[in-house]
């Protein structure tokens, strides 16, 4: 349901860009929702 999305983001950042600072969980979700605002996913009937 999305509970682990932040953790997997942190994992990804650590793997792909080790040593760089990672945003907080609240910031991460703000970013996700801003992205959804800019480009919504489709839904079905």
């Amino acid at each position, binding site marked *: *349901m*999305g*509970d*682990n*999305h*932040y*953790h*997997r*983001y*942190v*994992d*990804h*950042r650590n*793997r*792909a860009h*080790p040593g760089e600072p990672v945003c907080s*969980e*609240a910031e*991460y*979700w*703000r*970013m*996700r*929702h801003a*992205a*959804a*605002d*800019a*480009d*919504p*996913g*489709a*839904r*079905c*009937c």
Partner: protein
Amino acid sequence: MATPAAAPTEETVGDITYIRTDSDLPPVAVIDRSPIGARHRTIFGLIAVLGAVAWAIIAFFRGETVNAVWFVVAAICTYVIGFRFYARLIEMKIVQPRDDHATPAEIFENGTDYMPTDRRVLFGHHFAAIAGAGPLVGPVLATQMGYLPGTIWIIIGAVVAGCVQDYLVLSISTRRRGRSLGQMARDELGAVGGVAAIVGVLVIMVILLAVLALVVVNALAESPWGVFSIAMTIPIAVFMGLYLRFLRPGRVSEVSLIGVILLLAAVISGGWVAQTDWGADWFSLSKVTLSWCIIVYGLAASILPVWLLLAPRDYLSTFMKVGTIALLALGILLARPVMEAPAVSQFATRGDGPVFAGSLFPFLFITIACGALSGFHSLISSGTTPKLLEKESQMRLIGYGGMLTESFVAIMALITASILNQHLYFVMNAPAAATGGAAASAAEYANGLGLSGAPITPEQITAAADAVGEHSIVSRTGGAPTLAIGMAEVLHQAFGGPSVKAFWYHFAIMFEALFILTTVDAGTRVARFMLSDGLGNLGGPLKKLRDPSWRVGAWVCSLIVVAAWGSILLMGVTDPLGGINTLFPLFGIANQLLAAIALTVVTVVVVKKGLLRWAWIPAVPLLWDLTVTMTASWQKIFSADPKLGYWKQHSQYVAAKEAGKTAFGAAKTPQQIDEVIRNTFIQGTLSIVFAVLVLIVFVTGLIVALRAIRGEGPPLAEEQPVPSRLFAPSGLIVSAAEKEVQEQWDASSVAHATSRARSVGTAHH
């Protein structure tokens, strides 16, 4: 982004081939070519025999005691055989998955929208995105023709058409960096076909939103209990949004659980709110008022920030959708109800049924829509799901398997409608013009239909309404109330007894309305983006529309989209002829035409790849779908039967008006005659627009395919493959070889901190 490396190395041990893209890493792909063993042969043989027995009982057993459990058995056995053999054939001959190639999720992994996700989690996501009200409502309406035609089409149609479309669209989008259907149409068919496809998707989206909103309006009108519990979902969602934003970000399961508990409380308290004077006063809304509420809600939801309303509603409706469907399946197995509907009804051949007009071919296939073949799934299979897919070989499970699950939902909806008393079914589903709207006239009408079984009395109709806490259930068209009564029947037998029947009814209404409204608000937003993108492409001053942060542009486009579906909705609720039976066929045709667009794109790609020998796999469903939709469109446009043809109806009412009549047919006043004239004009025009757009796409596809066969024309728009650097099992069950490779990855991730051992979604966080 991974960089192209040297050619992959293969190592074969017995029947199993291991492929590595990097000599320092364990294999990224396992190809198992072992022949099918004796044990498997026995298991699949038994499943096939059991399925055949179940089908024989459904199809040939005449009497009044066909148990619903046989439908579940026939469906599941057919799905298993279809998935194991037909989907496997498609995989081997057309899709040819390459697990040594990275998927878009791996290539563009960013920890947000591109993310290789565990196959079981992704299966849930994909299913939640494709399943909506369509597979629940369509089969309920199709029960008018008896249970047998619907059952056959839902199960067989899914195996040979719906699943094939979903699977193949997913596979071609995955090879194209997760591009959307519209973009792929432009790439593969050229500019004309591409533009027709994009305009087609937009117009079809509008009619979809209007009809789904109409289903909700019909379910909630004059029902204070229903209106109260649905209205409460808005503050509940806003509370969840605020909780996730400010209190505990990321605790999605926790907040969804709180939301579901609040929702159940809202359904229960709706019962006593509806009994108070003020409750009945505030929440008994007419269809027109309710339509305006939904229109204003749709506009607000498409402008408000996603986190406040849309995202939390989405969590809530996903939770409810999966939970309720599982509950219904369990309820059917526990209650084991018996079918009341006939196998094939009189309306199947005569074509004059009150629920929707037209004979079995083509209108049964139009009405069932999403349960067997749904064009809208191609919008999810392209674009959304490829960005989360780990391995190409998992596409069979996600694409084909996801659609099988949706078909199963449709079968359950068909069962719940078929176990109802047939007189009651027609009392609820015939338009008010036929039933007269009151219990006495409705009983007289239903008893005059020549249905089997004992006649119904007005007292029985009133008692049925009382049992579910409603004032009246006469002419509650649209399918949702019928499904809710059927679900209440099943669920109160399995859980809780007669005292909770009204709760289950309103629970079912709330569940349907919840995710229809989620589709309405998300759909409005998606359509708004399509519109601003399309207008932006025209260039000039409109180019500014492509910037999603330009608020004025967003508002104007939202307003246009909402005005478009809102006006069709209002047209449907005020229509003297009854909205559902004129508009639902239009929705079905639209959805099936979208499937024709998707299947055209897929067939062209298969031909371009040089797989002419296997092109029949997508081409057969495409030709069937075109035959169905073009026949239906033809009848809707040209039929001389005024019940069927929009233009015939139009000309009759125009003639009546010119003759100076003040009442004609279902129209009782001159104003209603004008409404029918306007509505039939709009419906007839839309039918023509849909059919023409799809024919343009199909003809362009045919030309491109023929040129490809002659070796001319543009090349395939597949992207250059990038070697994969991760491993994941293909199917639900992990094979021995896959397990061994997974262990190597687990060991290697300890040595190399930078590689990933386990797919996300399952790791122990």
